[in-house]
């Protein structure tokens, strides 16, 4: 060949790493060879438990649902109607499920106040554990669960912050690292709904059991149930934690006997990163819905659960606007509002839980720490607990050194 094979690539490293990341991601979601199915039981068959049960129907090459547990019989009946649920043995007492030798792993999706006890018992019973978020009800439980999990290195404990398992959120984490946003100073998070957040109750005696989210004895309210996802993502993406947390809120619309606030706002300062995080949730307006905006000197990323858009700042655009035209095989199409959609490959995105359960399977088989693990779970749980303290006690809460877990 007469052509000089001069290498023109100036950014080979960047380009290659971009392609490789994608392959690694893809590899993370393919079935490991020769690994058997994980026999799994679900403890708690409410909304979340049955939601995960449905996702498991798409992962029958990795999981076999062998047990279902709930102390409300009508929930067990409903769960049995989902996919292979009918084949599963049913339990009303989770201890009995944990005693069953046929169960390798459990999904724990019970009210928040029970997370710690059930997870502790499951670890003691030798089970692999997928524990719904928020990991624990309070900080002491979080610290204790970390200790217990560390005593059992051969068991996996994964925490169900499923949204960040979406390839979209991995891509955003990578973009932050690559400097697309420049220096991030503000992060806005909302999770708003217009509705009472109540579930129908077949008979009044079951009110507290079904609507446990309304009562502080069982629940961490909107901060634990909704805002914890975004708190966890920020911790994970920036490898940080909030140092100082302010909060406020009230029962401002649904004065229906509930104890947890229907309207909350939290401000967090991440001192090391120099970031202010704003977290809000209301039950009284749905216009913003899920909102997650990361704002940096070079650009903004606006995230939905399964969509993301990058908005370069004006100066960032100028920097790259020095060409008059761009040629490419599949052209980048700008949104009408000046953003670039963040994509993660040709395949449409699946529900975050799908990726999370795949990672759980991988973590169990390869004895690897899952990306949402007991340490990150504890960090999020501590943040939520501090936020709730600030909200309910009108105090400024500070992160304590003993919460730093590795």
């Amino acid at each position, binding site marked *: *060949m*007469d*052509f*000089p*094979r*001069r*290498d*023109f*690539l100036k*950014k*080979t490293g*960047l*380009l*290659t790493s*971009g*392609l*490789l990341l*994608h392959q690694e991601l*893809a590899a993370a979601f*393919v079935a490991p060879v020769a690994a058997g199915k994980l026999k799994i039981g679900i403890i708690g068959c409410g909304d979340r438990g049955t939601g995960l049960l449905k996702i498991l129907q798409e992962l029958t090459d990795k999981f076999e649902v062998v047990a279902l547990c709930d102390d409300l019989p009508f929930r067990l009946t409903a769960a049995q109607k989902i996919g292979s649920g009918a084949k599963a043995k049913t339990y009303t007492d989770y201890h009995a499920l944990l005693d069953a030798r046929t169960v390798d792993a459990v999904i724990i999706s019970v009210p928040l106040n029970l997370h710690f006890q059930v997870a502790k018992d499951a670890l003691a019973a030798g089970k692999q554990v997928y524990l719904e978020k928020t990991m624990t009800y309070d900080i002491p439980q979080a610290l204790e669960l970390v200790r217990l999990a560390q005593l059992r290195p051969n068991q996996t404990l994964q925490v169900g912050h499923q949204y960040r398992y979406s390839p979209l959120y991995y*891509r955003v984490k990578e*973009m932050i690292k*690559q400097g*697309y946003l420049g220096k991030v100073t503000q992060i806005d998070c909302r999770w708003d709904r217009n509705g009472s957040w109540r579930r129908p109750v077949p008979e009044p005696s079951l009110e507290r059991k079904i609507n446990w989210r309304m009562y502080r004895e069982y629940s961490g309210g909107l901060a634990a149930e909704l805002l914890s996802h975004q708190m966890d993502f920020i911790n994970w993406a920036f490898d940080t934690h909030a140092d100082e947390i302010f909060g406020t809120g009230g029962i401002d619309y649904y004065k229906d006997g509930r104890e947890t606030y229907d309207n909350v706002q939290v401000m967090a300062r991440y001192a090391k990163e120099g970031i202010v995080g704003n977290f809000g949730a209301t039950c009284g307006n749905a216009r913003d819905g899920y909102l997650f905006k990361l704002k940096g000197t*070079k650009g903004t990323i606006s995230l939905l659960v399964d969509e993301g858009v*990058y908005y*370069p700042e004006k100066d*960032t655009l100028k*920097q*790259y606007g*020095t*060409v*008059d*035209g*761009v*040629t*490419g*095989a*599949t*052209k*980048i*199409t*700008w949104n009408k509002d000046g953003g*670039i*959609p*963040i*994509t*993660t*490959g*040709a*395949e449409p995105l699946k529900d975050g839980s799908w990726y999370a359960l795949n990672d759980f399977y991988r973590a169990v088989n390869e004895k690897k720490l899952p990306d949402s693990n007991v340490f990150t779970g504890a960090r999020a749980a501590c943040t939520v607990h501090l936020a709730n303290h600030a909200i309910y006690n009108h105090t400024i809460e500070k992160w304590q050194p003993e919460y730093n877990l590795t």
Partner: protein
Amino acid sequence: MLHCLFLALGLWLLPPREVALRAFQLNGYAQGTTYAITYYAADSAVTSADVARQLAEIDASMSLYQPGSLINRFNAAPRGVVADQHLKVVVRKALQVYQDTDGRFDATVEPLVRAWGFSTQHTEAPPSAAAIQAILKGVGSEKLHLRGDSLVKDQPAVHLDLNGIAQGYTVDVLAALLESRHIRNYLVELGGEIRVRGHKFPSRELMRIGIERPDTSDLLPTSMQQVIRLAAGGVTTSGNYRKFKRWGAVKSAHLIDPKTGYPFQNELISVTVVAPDALTADAYDNALMGMGLTKALTFLQRHANLQAYLIYQRPDGTIADTATPGFQRLLSPE
């Protein structure tokens, strides 16, 4: 009286040199993507309405998405149709490049593309060997003929798809529209295919054209691979990135070999071609992708009117690139 005074003053104040050229920009959506036109003129000689009219004319001729378009009527016809000027020009080029590339560019490949699920319809599994063989019987541009004012086919099953070169042709037509209004400095881009001529004003620099970096990220800022400066010509890119399908462990790229019926499997990731016009560049970029690196470079040695930049994957998985000497001369020093 007042008018006369202003006129006199104006003439007196105007420098005797040429009129100052200003930049005009037109943007919009067309052919399932966006277009952007920049031209330099004393006044807005071409408007969005002019562009829209021209685009509508091309769609009526060559769009597979427009019911009743000439190409759709051809595909539905058992024998053929009377061709309009657009169809004649593009099919003539398609047949010429088909010959020149030993059939690697083939405007009748669409039924195979559809069978592999890269058309509008989703497919659950790759086509069977038998299905591919059956489809191949209706594929091949030798079954396509321009006779007098007509476009005819040897078999009713022959299905024409000009999507691979229509965008290149469209930017050429829009450039001709600008030229017809005496505009000599412009850049027309549609779907990443470009036709350019002249300089920018007031800097009098050549236009700078970025070549997109193949990546799954779709993000602009770090995605510019190279920048070229070009006085006049067409620039187009064909690539195997971003558009692929996974069937279990098997990954299929969207460029299908019209001879075998299977996706091209070679080391090329993208090919950018510079040619005198965008239609020519657009017709050759796909064919070069199909050739693989070594054959593509040999082919380019025999074609002085084509300059190209190729990004490929080495056997060890790393990414590398190379270019023809003519292309290297266009590269803009940063």
